[in-house]
């Protein structure tokens, strides 16, 4: 009854196969089976958004999706956000603007913002705040997250930054 099902999917650009119990959430599958622990679980009920990943380009809550449902899908997690050693403009902006403290909610915010900016690069400040309101952060008071996303949006529109590196 709890037989595992074999699925194939693309994670951060790499084709992967996994054998998972149907009852395993996508978040648990990413964390426990694929060892991608950057995706975090904060509430298990789809409210906090810490588990946000991109599935076929759209931000979704990976705690509210079964892993088996991702069969054939393309999943992007925080581990795939940087381009090698070159940080994504959102990562760079979160770092420079102190957009994180404990960092636990950060992967979810990064993926939420990445998906939202890919869909609409021209969000107003109000729209940014509105989009970010679907995730919870207990440390920052959000002000620096909003600021970081706004500045990253400008950088992304201007084209890739030449010197954004991890160190």
């Amino acid at each position, binding site marked *: 009854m709890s037989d595992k099902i074999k699925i194939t999917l693309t994670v951060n650009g790499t084709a992967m196969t996994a054998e998972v119990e149907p009852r395993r959430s996508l978040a648990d599958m990413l964390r426990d089976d694929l060892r991608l*622990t950057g995706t975090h679980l904060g*509430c298990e009920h789809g*409210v906090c958004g810490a588990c946000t990943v991109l599935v076929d380009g759209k931000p979704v809550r990976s705690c509210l999706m079964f892993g088996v449902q991702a069969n054939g899908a393309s999943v992007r997690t925080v581990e795939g956000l940087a381009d090698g050693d070159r940080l994504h403009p959102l990562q760079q902006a979160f770092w420079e603007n102190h957009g*994180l*403290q*404990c*960092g*636990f909610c950060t992967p979810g915010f990064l993926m939420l913002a990445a998906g939202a900016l890919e869909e609409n690069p021209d969000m107003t400040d109000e729209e940014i705040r509105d989009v970010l309101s679907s995730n919870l952060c207990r440390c920052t008071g*959000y002000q*620096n997250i909003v600021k970081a996303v706004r500045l990253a949006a400008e950088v992304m529109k201007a084209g890739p930054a030449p010197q954004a590196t991890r160190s």
Partner: protein
Amino acid sequence: MSAKKPAKYGIGAPVRRREDPALITGTGRYTDDITPDGTLHGFVLRSQMAHADITVEGIDEVRAMPGVKLVWTAADIADLGGLPCQANMELADGSRLTAPPHPVLADGRVRHVGDPIAFVVAETASAARDAAEALMIDYDPLDVVVDTAAALDPDAPVIWPEKGSNLAFEYHGGDAAETERVFAGAARVVELSLVNQRVVANYMETRGAIGEYDAATGRYTLTTGTQGGHSMRKILADDILKVDESLIRVVTPDVGGGFGTKNFVYSEHPLVLHAAKTLGAPVKWTGDRGDHFVIDSHGRDNVTTGRIALDAEGRILALQVDLVAAMGAYLHQFGPFIPEGALMMATGLYDIPVWFMKVRGVFTNTTPTDAYRGAGRPEAAYLIERLIDLAGRETGLGQVEIRRRNFIPPQKMPYTTVTGQYYDSGEFDAHLALALEQADFDGFAARRAKSRAKGRLRGIGLATYVEICAFPGSEEANVVLNDDGSATLYIGTQSNGQGHATAYGQLIAKYLGLDLDKVETVQGDTDRVRTGEGTGGSRSIPLGLASVDIASKVLVEQIRQLAAERLETSAADLELVDGTVRIVGTDRSVSLAELAASTPGKAKLKAHGNFQQDGATYPNGTHVCEVEIDPETGATTIVGYTVVDDFGVTVNPLLLEGQVHGGIAQSIGQALHEAAIYDESGQLVTASFLDYAMPRADDMPSIRFETRNVPSITNMLGIKGAGEAGTIGATPAVMNAVVDALDAARGIRHIDMPATPSRVWHALNAA
């Protein structure tokens, strides 16, 4: 004149965080990210009832279920001690506080929803959960008390019969008779009864714990998010496992927020250790949000009546407070201490000569309460700042003048309050004036008129707060120069996301002439760091950084001596720059790596600092909040927020402002949204994020923040501490603003938190 470029490192530099590259790329390591080979998984079965005698049935059947390794109830762990309450304070009757037992697993009786009943370990987390849920708990229900204000009613069910009532303790401060006398002769008395409602910490990373045991050495290793592993190690050793402290190692990986609540030992800590020893395999427990809501200690939950006696000019003659604090069903580790914070800081920034305060802690069938960001100080500030505001309204002096008239005047500084606090420094009227200017207080009347024209009610509220940080004590720091020329700091404070490694590192980097990424901070491992007092009470930077400063300076001197011999010059001619020691004004130098690698014995490459602070520090400041209320829906929007803080000295303005933002957000949460609510049967009806309203990005204003620092004379570096200040100033500022709007519109002078739309709407429609 060219603009002065800020220093790259050192005190005051806005250094971006060393911690961030890992956290933004998903390579941080929080407790649940760690799974040693062969790990077994534990599940705690919790009480669904608030008060009942229990028997557990079906244990043998569950033990036989596939994959199940162990099933424990209280009887199976009788050799373990209970969870201690460390508050053995002196009480009003002269006795010492004694706590009722708090067993690791409930022993025949459960006293709150979530009380742990059984621990099951299995090969997988889901197998453990399935097995635990197959246990049959036979509940024989007992009467329940959840209401703090009703806990002492004569007919209330008594949770601990040996105590005779639900009174857990009573302690007093001040002079009751003198206070009565002053009140009797006062020109005016202002009184307010408030509920400081129960809230839940809700750090984003829920707790987890991994226990390991090495049979060869007899040593235990606990990996868990803490606010400092040393105190946890001591409790586990002395009180619960009853082994020598040296046999326990506590490792703290990345911590996803603590806010006070991760300070404590919880049942799962000894359970995973004891199970790891019993089973000879690592045992891991990961709590979920539901566990957090019912088992991790809650915050606040006071019912308070405060009165101030005023003379004819509006000067406060005396303060009288009666505070009832819910302790929950057990006395938690620091629980009874928390209202003491409210007591110590009761008089705020005001020159109040006479006082009396009565604190009663009461048992209810609820999750125990303990430290939550601010821990008593927010309760104090909320009361005195609401009271003085009301006095401003009732005397007609207004919210600014009543404060000015009662501030401790500069000529009385330093000042010892009637509650016994030594305020070493501060210029209270000055930060008030600056905050009013920044918030354009004078333009408020025009903004209110504009809002009125739109049918909205506008209010402005102040809080001029003071708090106590960095309690007397010390935090030793050891700085080591490594053979590769990098430096390592060993320190026993514990970052929970504040960025300690950056704050400490930026000072060490400056002294040693290193880049920040060449300075590593080792924390969170009781084997690698000798002592530690952890993070709490905004102590890490005032105490920790002072010791880092001492150690760094000593190390720099030692390095100079070594280099002087090597370069055949005088130490006084040497500077540490770019990873080298150089003769000033020349290109003759030796790299730190070369120097370190070639130094025999390594004694000269290590330095120790241990700043001992005798008094506490007292950060203070002014918050100004402006709100707009839609009377149609009762919804409150924060339209302006200004803070001017006196933190003594700013170490890293980026990090500092982040602390203030976050503290204010938690406080706005309490003021407008959050409440932990129990129904009459003791069910926590707000036990998930679906029901417990956390502030979100669109609930938050853009905060305007400034410092107006007056260095502390108590702290070596002048630092006062900033971790809790935002939380302390914001609740009264927000609520005073809400009341200001409601008072102007309908003469409403009190509303309790959280000022939800429905509560505000009801108040408007009842007035």
